[in-house]
């Protein structure tokens, strides 16, 4: 690729620690509900398309920007592009969406959106990500699938 990355020198943050296994989680009789942290763990290790860094290290996704409602079967993920004119925002959103489609049970209705006020074309990106048919069409494009697969390979 001859194109130079949009954000050549992004801020890099520490990785959080792995989730600790509690005794409740070892106990066969207790049901563990889905929570923010679990959904966050699903997407924190997605690679950024431009850098050899994860979305967590770039703080594109954060635990506090995830909403999980177990009873209503709703998962909302808000992500924050590193700069407001990032051309990769749609691709990042698509990667998060694909990863959640593959990794969450089908009962959940998943919404992936750009955090409010963090991107110049916020509404356009949100609209694209919410459009099922456009997502499905994108996933039939082999080049795109390849890039997305490379992004989600470590998560």
């Amino acid at each position, binding site marked *: 690729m001859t194109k130079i990355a949009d954000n050549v020198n992004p801020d890099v943050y520490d990785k959080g620690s792995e989730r600790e296994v509690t005794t409740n989680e070892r106990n066969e009789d207790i049901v563990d509900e889905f929570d923010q942290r679990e959904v966050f763990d699903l997407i924190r290790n997605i690679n950024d398309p431009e850098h050899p860094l994860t979305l967590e290290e770039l703080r594109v996704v954060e635990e506090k920007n995830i909403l999980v409602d177990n009873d209503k079967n709703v998962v909302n993920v808000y992500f924050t592009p590193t700069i407001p004119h990032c051309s990769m925002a749609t691709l990042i959103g698509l990667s998060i969406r694909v990863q959640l489609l*593959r990794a969450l049970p089908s009962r959940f209705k998943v919404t992936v959106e750009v955090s409010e006020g963090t991107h110049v074309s916020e509404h356009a990106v949100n609209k694209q990500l919410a459009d099922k048919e456009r997502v499905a069409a994108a996933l039939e494009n082999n080049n795109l699938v*390849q890039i997305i697969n490379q992004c989600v390979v470590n998560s």
Partner: protein
Amino acid sequence: MEPIWFKPDLAEQIIKTDDLFDQTQSIVTDIVSGRLDLTCLTENMAGTLTNKDAECRERGMKFFTKILKEIPKDYLSEMQIKFISKFYVDRLKDNHRVIPSVLEGYLAIVDMRNYNVQYSGEYFTILFREVACQSQVRQDRYNIYLTIQKILDMDVQYTQSLGPDFVYGFISSMDGERDPRNLLYLFNFLPKFLNKVPLGHLVEEMFEVISCYYPIDFHPSPNDPAAVSRNELAAALCPCLCAVPEFAEHCLLLLIEKLDSSLRVAKIDSLMLLAESCKTFKPQSYGPFLKALWSSIQREISHKTDEEIKLAAHEALSALVAKLSTAADTDQSFENLIKGILISMQTAVAEASTVVQFVQVTKTLLTAANASKQSCEIITKSMIPAVIAYYEFKTSPKLQIASLDFLGDLYDMADHWAVVELIEKQVDEIPQLCLNAVSVPSKEYQLAGFKTLIRVMRALKTDLVLPFVEILMYNVQHSLDDELLGVSVQTIHAISRKYPELMMSLVVQGKCDINNLTADKTALQKRLNLLSNLASIDDFTKIIIEEMLKAITTNDEDASKVVQALNTSISNTSLYSEDKVAQIESDHGLIESILAWLLKEIKTSTQDSLDNGCTLISNTISSLPVEKQLKVLSRHTNEILGQWKIDDTYFQVLECLYRSVNQGVYNAHFEELLSLALNLSLNSESAVVRLKACYMVAHFLNKVDSGQKFELLYEILKNYLSSCGREDEDFCPRLINLYGWITKALVLRGSDLFQFWLNKIVIAISNPECSKAASESIRTIMTDTSNCLSSRQHCRSSLLYKQRMFQAFTNMSEKIGPPGPDKEAYYLSWAYVLEKTPKTVLNNEISKIVPLAIDALEYDNKDLLTVMIDLLIHFVQGKNAIVTDSLQTILPRMINLTTYTKSMDVRIKSLQCIYELANGCPTRALLPHKQCTLLALAPALDDRKRLARHAAVRARTRWFLVGAPGEDKQD
């Protein structure tokens, strides 16, 4: 008839036929026996040696060389050698065809005992003038180098006296050498040559010839059976480039240039060369290059991904600093270098925003500090205050914790180089910082603070002890976290070693209130644990142990807690050495008190506290010398033997006395005790007593001396078992259980008798009535238990006993064959054996084990499934073809198990196996199953347990990638 070599026709024969070349050995024999004179032989050969035709001369020289090579090395006289040598030197001027034999022949002459090194000067002069070394074939070039090496080995002084012409000759003869084997030889020889022969004005020429190979870029031909590798050549070239101090300037220029190259091998070679060069070059030579060197090293050291380069850079830095520090007193450059390092690293530390960056910088600093005493002093002196300041203004918890670790490292370094006194002022600040850290009510901070404090304990001043003790004692009494609790106890232990008197009043008598030990019931157990830990310090032993024993003998309620605390601490061999335990026993009569307590409590107390008491006694006995063990046994055995008849629980006490005696300890009671133990192991109504009885049988069989005593006990065992038949349904499982222990004792002993007992167990597996007990016995044999047949009990433990069990079990079960319809116990026994057998052994038996494991997946038994899935995962990871072949069977069974309701471990492991299958099998085999696997894994995503869901996500996302664009896999 006389052989041909006695006649002048010899010359003609040599030219005509090859036969004579095979008979040289007989000629040599004739010469040595004195029948043939060498002069005579030479005369007979004259026709060929002086023939006009070059081809004939070649044959003649070849023949003569062959004789020279075969003649004994000490046969020829000095005079003879002198003439032959002269002749050979003369031949160097001959036709090129003759030269190879001349070189070979001269090599043989040089080896002779009476060879005078003085002849070689002439040889080399003519050689370098007449023969162009690089136009010869490989072997001849090698012969030339070898001759030079031999002469050098023979007489260094003479070689030196040959002067620059000789050196020049050598340089020009190796200039342009391109055969890897010859090069390897030359590189190995050159450092020796360079060290012994002064180069004079030829330094630059010599360096040019060597350095043209640097960095080595060489790929051996794939057909070469004994290929020379690039790394061998590179490793050999490195010492040549820095063999003598005169090379310094050229060498450093070269390596700085190559450090800047973009080639990875060039960088690694240069860094290694730099490290190597520090062995020979003078510190002053580095002066002008230090700036360039440090900037290159710094660049490589902060490399993000390449560990090898990083390591090489660290080594180079360490060598460089160590070298320069040797001239620290006379030369400014050392200080400049260290200051340069400090300035750039301090900036890097301040800029570090992640732990990874921080650790990288600190590693560099530690490498530089670890190189020499001087550097350690300068770096620790300036870095300790810097890091303390850094701690204050970086508020990220991870960075603060990392900087605490770093302070500990710096202190260790200063301690290692014994410069702590010089930086006392700086070091004194560290404990205060630790106190700040542990005052934060967070586990991570406290752990890091205490751990660093333990490392810098010597810098702790008395005024800080009290605040630390407050926090520590709070942790000890209230913390629910095991790790924090452990570290707190360790810290108190460490402080106590430094300030025994202070801690005695603060902790032992203050907080723990030793004199009213059991008055305060809250957190009693935790305080007891702390005290029994502290009792291992000599200053505290007497007071604490006495109070504890007093509590055991007088206080009924809490005695069991005291025993438990003592048991936990004394079992920890890193706290209590054997000598210490033996000393406590002799000073305070530990066993006596515990035994009295046990006998008093045996009826009323719980099994756990009984076990604690028993383990404490047996561990104490284990630490005593043999005579004392015997004394204890003889004092107590009779008394307890009388009591067991009333109640067989007393047997437990008896067992713990005998459990840990040394090998070969034997007294008159052994035979009686064995019969008793056998009887109880089969007939006692209490399961615990039966188990302890089995322990005793096993220990006796394992530890008794070979020979008569062993035979005697074994005889008692067999007689008892053959006469004890009883017909009820309890009896059979008990008997098989006992067989298990006997087998284990014998196999650990390394005795072949175990096969007899194992066979009985294997037969029992096919018997539906006792198959369960049989598989339990197999588990007993394969599993290590801490209080039976372990080294703590001084038991024999033969090497590789698990492999022997595996072999024996495989053979026997093959002979007997799988049992009838219900095979669960059969597979379970297999599972127990396979679980503990080393994987390397199993790898040789894949074709047997994999089908077994696949069949076993059908049975609803948690233990069985866990072991078998684990095994399959191991084989899948090993990418064995047999797994791919049975993919059709494995996959559906595994998918079935992902919804196994009884155990989440089975679910998790099966999902893990499905994940590994996607990694380990070739894509073409996986693709047909992709869609149905993805569908079948969907329910597991909504598992009730989070851990299982995690495994499901891993497996499912991996399967999505199978054969998809972007998958990173080579089949």
